[in-house]
């Protein structure tokens, strides 16, 4: 299947900085795709290259397989929702929403019908006469969505769509964006720096670092099978044990062999384990099959459902993190300074070659 929008080995430099460095990716029909990464990783530049606001130094932008690199932004059948929403302050809500159709030369009842439809879609039908400065942040965002969606673009580009909203509203709008995407069937390409947002909304995520795609995968794969150290550290919390890959695991100085799948070569390697994969015991355990580490509790952070226990292990500069469900006996009895034993099965660790 051809992607709706795709970039092919696209690159863009600003002076000495490679903002986007030979990126190739495609968004499928009806897909919710997220570009995730820290600020300055090139994700917004990539979005602007697709919208046509930046010209690539090399590479192509493709729409349904057709090269649109040379087409100016006002003639590309993709639309953008700006981070600031970029509503026209001197026009009413309906003026903003109908603007795109007006530019297509559409007039009269057909246009009014489409505007009403778009406003209904974002549930703003009764605010059509208002001006942007009379709207709340969430309402403005809906106007921006309606304004972009009314053009029925092949793909909608969203630049940090939720960044300007407060936390509670953000959660609601995540659901709303998914609903809109589902109802319209338009491919969404969203840029975000917020991993939770990306994990919650996207079908697929491209995690970017320094202008390149570090990993492109489903949210689950990204979380559970990070391809490298950067991905593992960026998404969620992670324990890292530095050492050398050996048969059956990773050899870590001071801790011996930590068993894991995929160790082999003898090269430098890191074993990565999620804190929720660690089980904490208050008494020594010995297990042939699992990995065990003994240490002292140095911090307990209460997170509600869980608590995060940090355990200082001899030879490790950073404490090992373990997530303990609050409603357990262990959680009730663990205290600062107490000696504990952490355990995890080999298949829960992941060997990352560095």
């Amino acid at each position, binding site marked *: 299947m051809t992607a709706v929008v795709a970039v092919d080995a696209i690159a863009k430099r600003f002076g000495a900085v490679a903002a986007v460095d030979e990126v190739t990716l495609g968004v499928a029909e009806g897909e919710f795709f997220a570009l995730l990464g820290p600020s300055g990783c090139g994700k917004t530049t990539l979005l602007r290259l697709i919208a046509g606001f930046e010209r690539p130094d090399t590479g192509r932008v493709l729409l349904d397989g057709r090269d649109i690199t040379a087409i100016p932004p006002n003639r590309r059948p993709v639309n953008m929702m700006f981070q600031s929403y970029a509503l026209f*302050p001197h026009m009413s809500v309906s003026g903003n929403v109908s603007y*795109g159709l007006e*530019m297509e030369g559409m007039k009269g009842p057909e246009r009014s019908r489409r505007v009403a439809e778009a406003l209904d879609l974002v549930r703003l039908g009764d605010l059509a006469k208002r001006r942007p400065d009379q709207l709340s942040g969430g309402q403005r965002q809906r106007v921006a969505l309606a*304004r972009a969606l009314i053009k029925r673009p092949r793909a909608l580009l969203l630049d940090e769509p939720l960044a300007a909203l407060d936390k509670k509203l953000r959660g609601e709008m995540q659901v709303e964006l998914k609903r809109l995407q589902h109802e319209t069937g338009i491919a969404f390409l969203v840029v975000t720096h917020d991993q939770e947002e990306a994990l919650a909304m996207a079908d697929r995520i491209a995690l970017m670092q320094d202008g390149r795609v570090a990993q492109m995968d489903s949210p689950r794969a990204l979380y559970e099978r990070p391809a490298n150290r950067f991905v593992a550290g960026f998404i969620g919390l992670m324990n890292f044990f530095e050492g050398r890959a050996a048969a059956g695991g990773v050899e870590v100085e001071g801790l011996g062999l930590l068993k894991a799948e995929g160790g082999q070569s003898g090269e430098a390697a890191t074993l990565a384990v999620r804190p929720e994969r660690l089980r904490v015991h208050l008494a020594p355990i010995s297990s042939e099959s699992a990995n065990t580490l003994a240490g002292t509790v140095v911090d307990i952070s209460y997170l509600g459902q869980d608590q995060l226990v940090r355990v200082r292990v001899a030879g490790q500069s950073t404490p090992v993190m373990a997530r303990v469900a609050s409603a357990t006996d262990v959680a009730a009895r663990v205290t600062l300074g107490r000696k504990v034993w952490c355990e995890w099965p080999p298949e829960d660790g992941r060997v990352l070659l560095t």
Partner: protein
Amino acid sequence: MLKAPLSRRVLGAHLGLVYLFLYGPIAVLVALSFNESGLPTAWTGFSVEWYGKMLANAAIRAAVVNTLIVAAFSTLIATAIGTLLALGMERLRSSAAMDAAIYMPMIIPDIVLAIALLSFFTALDFTLGLHSIIAAHAVFNIAFVCVVVRATLKHFDKSIVEASIDLGASESRTFLRITLPVIFPGVLSGALLAFTLSVDEFIIAYFTAGAGPSSTTFPMQIYSMIRFGVTPEINAVATIVLGVSFVLILVSQRLRRDEPL
């Protein structure tokens, strides 16, 4: 900022004095314009006689017409060019050199600009008249309009221009439908300021007007009234001129709503 009530009161009193200093002399002129005797020392009764005399003065009327012509055209030119200049400067990565160029006509002593323009027009054998005053006034007015419009552009969200293009508008359409309407209050504010400055400008007009009453502007008329025989009529003229300037400047400020210039 200041907590101590004593220092606050002292500052307040001082500020009051400053306003008295600034507006006292103006108030005196306004009062005098309604004094029947026209003398500053004796109030002989309320009268609008001096306003009548002023209106009956053909030289004043002709000068006012000239000034309005000069101000209207120089404002028109300066508003168009100054706005473009401001928009252009927004596109420069570093505008330090341009900033300096813009401030030049604002701070160069009027007398220097006046003699320079006189030398220039004479060297080119250019016939002096209202048109040369218009060209001269446009020089500093372009600078002022540019500064005012730039202040407006500071609050201008450039992504609305991209949004318009993204929605299918061409560049020229975006300019007419989006950029211009949004910055319009700033443009109008600059235009009003330019108009006021042109109406009030004396020295440059004096040097670039050429000989003869056909291009005498209102400030030139006022200068000769002050210089060669003060008649009480001038108080009426002063009141009208200050009143008109104040209104124009207040409207200009109101349109901008941000920091005053």
